[in-house]
């Protein structure tokens, strides 16, 4: 048992390692996915801002270009644009005498971006390879983008650094429209031609800062969840391991108990064997040592009776005869006790036994012993039981001998042997019409040396039915009796036998035992 628990534990440990690995891999995957999504979102937001600003600049520019530029009062910040000097109405005077000058879209957007860039936070820039103002010259990234537009690219987007700070840079090409030619026709442009590019640069620092905070929070949360999971798995593992250790301990205890039990059974068996051997030795010594002196008593009392008869009176002879009779009786008693004790010893050999034949044999023998008696016998034919032949013969011999004895005074003695099925068990019966006995003493019927009748009435040692009971019990069966004094007795017994049909049940055939000389 501990070996299987060990194997189980090893397998469980393996599962828990797998669970730990799986948990870690799943969480790591989720974290990577989460961070990727966050990163993409950051750039999506920055891109949207870039688009918004770009479209706003475009809107300003298109509005201004649509109106052919706007007139604004001339100030120090907004001087007359020398590059528009070729336009006839660059400077006008209102009827009230205020001086106004024309502001073209590029100029307007540039000024918006230069003076209010802090408000937008996003740097917009219009640039071109053909410059009207040198300060509008493209930076290296814009130059690269303009070259790309020349090759037909529709837009450029990239993260690049400006003055050491990360920016999302976006740029689209700018094509000449009809409204543009008012100012730019002198440069030789035609409508639809690539004029330059409009770029926006969205500072990424705030987005990256937000992303950094998100990353920090997320990583921390994931670490916490991961740790919690690890703790849970570890906790579960420890619980299971403790349970298993307990099972193992219990198993070991059971084994120890079993070993103890086995040892005790062995000890008891040895004790029992020793006791049985002692009993055997005792029975043997009873057989030998009790009979030998008895023989001497009988022998020498007979010798006195024979050799000194002339010196004894009738009383003396009577006493010696009584001694002899009693030694004979004691001899029979010793033999009966021995045969009773022998019943509890010795192996049983189960086999089918023809009880009808056995009964017939025994009754024939009884008839031969007392040829003067006439007893009617009825024996159910073909009754076969499963049991030990020797013990079954002992049972039937004692019951039939009893029946024979107690019918000795009946006017028409009759002895029957039959079987009937009660429930699923055959019940064997020996019935006689003899003296019977008083049922109120039936408790003592099977006790050794307890007798129902005086020795003068019917002789016997009182061991016969005790022997029957022992033999029946060794078969796992039961024996009981019914009787009415003066009308006879019936003895029933069962045997725990292999189930099978009982043959010859309920029928009788008359079979007078042979009355012959044997």
């Amino acid at each position, binding site marked *: 048992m501990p070996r299987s628990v060990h194997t189980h534990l090893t397998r469980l440990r393996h599962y828990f390692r797998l669970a730990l690995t799986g948990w870690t891999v799943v969480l790591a995957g989720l974290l990577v996915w989460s961070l990727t999504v966050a990163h993409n979102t950051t750039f999506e937001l920055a891109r949207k801002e870039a688009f918004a600003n770009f479209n706003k600049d475009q809107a300003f520019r298109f509005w201004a270009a649509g109106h052919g530029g706007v007139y604004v009062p001339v100030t120090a910040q907004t001087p007359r644009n020398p590059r528009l000097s070729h336009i006839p109405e660059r400077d006008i005077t209102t009827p009230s005498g205020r001086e106004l000058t024309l502001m073209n879209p590029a100029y307007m957007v540039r000024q918006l971006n230069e003076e209010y860039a802090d408000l937008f936070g996003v740097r917009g820039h219009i640039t071109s390879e053909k410059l009207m103002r040198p300060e509008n010259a493209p930076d290296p990234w814009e130059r690269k983008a303009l070259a790309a537009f020349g090759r037909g690219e529709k837009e450029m987007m990239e993260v690049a650094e400006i003055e050491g700070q990360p920016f999302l840079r976006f740029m689209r090409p700018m094509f000449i429209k009809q409204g543009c030619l008012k100012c730019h026709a002198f440069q030789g442009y035609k409508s639809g031609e690539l004029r330059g590019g409009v770029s926006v640069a969205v500072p990424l620092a705030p987005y990256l800062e937000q992303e950094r905070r998100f990353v920090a929070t997320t990583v921390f949360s994931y670490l916490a969840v991961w740790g919690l999971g690890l703790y849970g798995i570890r906790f579960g593992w420890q619980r299971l391991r403790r349970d298993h250790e307990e099972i193992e301990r219990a198993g070991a205890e059971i084994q120890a108990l079993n070993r103890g039990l086995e040892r005790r059974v062995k000890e008891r068996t040895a004790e029992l064997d020793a006791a049985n051997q002692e009993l055997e030795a005792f029975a043997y010594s009873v057989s030998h040592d009790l*009979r*030998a002196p008895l*023989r001497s008593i009988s*022998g020498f009392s007979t*010798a006195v009776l024979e050799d000194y008869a002339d010196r004894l009176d009738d009383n003396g002879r009577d006493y010696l005869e009584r001694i*002899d009779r009693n*030694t004979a009786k004691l001899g029979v008693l010793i033999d009966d006790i021995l045969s009773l004790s022998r019943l509890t010893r*010795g192996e049983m050999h189960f086999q089918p036994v023809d009880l009808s034949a056995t009964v017939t044999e025994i009754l024939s023998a009884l008839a031969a012993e007392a040829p003067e008696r006439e007893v009617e016998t009825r024996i159910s034919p073909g009754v076969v039981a499963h049991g030990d032949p020797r013990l079954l013969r002992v049972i039937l011999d004692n019951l039939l001998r009893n029946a024979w004895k107690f019918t000795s005074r009946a006017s028409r003695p009759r002895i029957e042997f039959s079987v009937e099925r009660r429930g699923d068990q055959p019940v064997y019966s020996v019935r006689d019409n003899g003296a019977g006995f008083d049922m109120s003493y039936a408790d003592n019927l099977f006790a050794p040396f307890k007798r129902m009748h005086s020795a003068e009435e019917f002789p016997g040692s009182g061991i016969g039915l005790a022997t029957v009971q022992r033999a029946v019990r060794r078969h796992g069966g039961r024996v009981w009796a019914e009787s009415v004094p003066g009308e006879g007795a019936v003895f029933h017994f069962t045997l725990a036998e292999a189930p099978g049909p009982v043959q010859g049940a309920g029928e009788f055939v008359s079979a007078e035992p042979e009355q012959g000389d044997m």
Partner: protein
Amino acid sequence: MNDKNILLVEDNDDDVQLTRRALEKAHIGNPLIVVRDGAAALEYLFDDNLPHPCLTLLDINLPKLDGHEVLKRLRADARTKLLPVVMLTTSDEESDRLRSYSLGCNSYVRKPVEFARFVEAVKQLGLYWIILNRPPPGGGAADG
């Protein structure tokens, strides 16, 4: 050889006396030689100067060597291999009977308690083994 001795191997003096009496009652006049233990029995039977008895009555419970051991050694020796041996004992144990016959006894008789029946048994034994039974040639020696 001419006497047709009976050898009784018996340690109980009462039994010796009763056996002697029973032989007398049965009118068996053959000389009765009595030895009191197993070793003495073997000493007697293995003595080449002494005639073999026509019948040996052997008890089982004996001092020194028990009846079974005596029987075993008798059967193992060519001189006494075929010697008629009757177990005359108190025991009626199956194990004793089985062992006696296994070791090669010729008969097994249980001593009855009642003296009258004992006399009857001794009488029949004497009649059978001394008068009716024909001993092996050579008085029990296997090589004849």
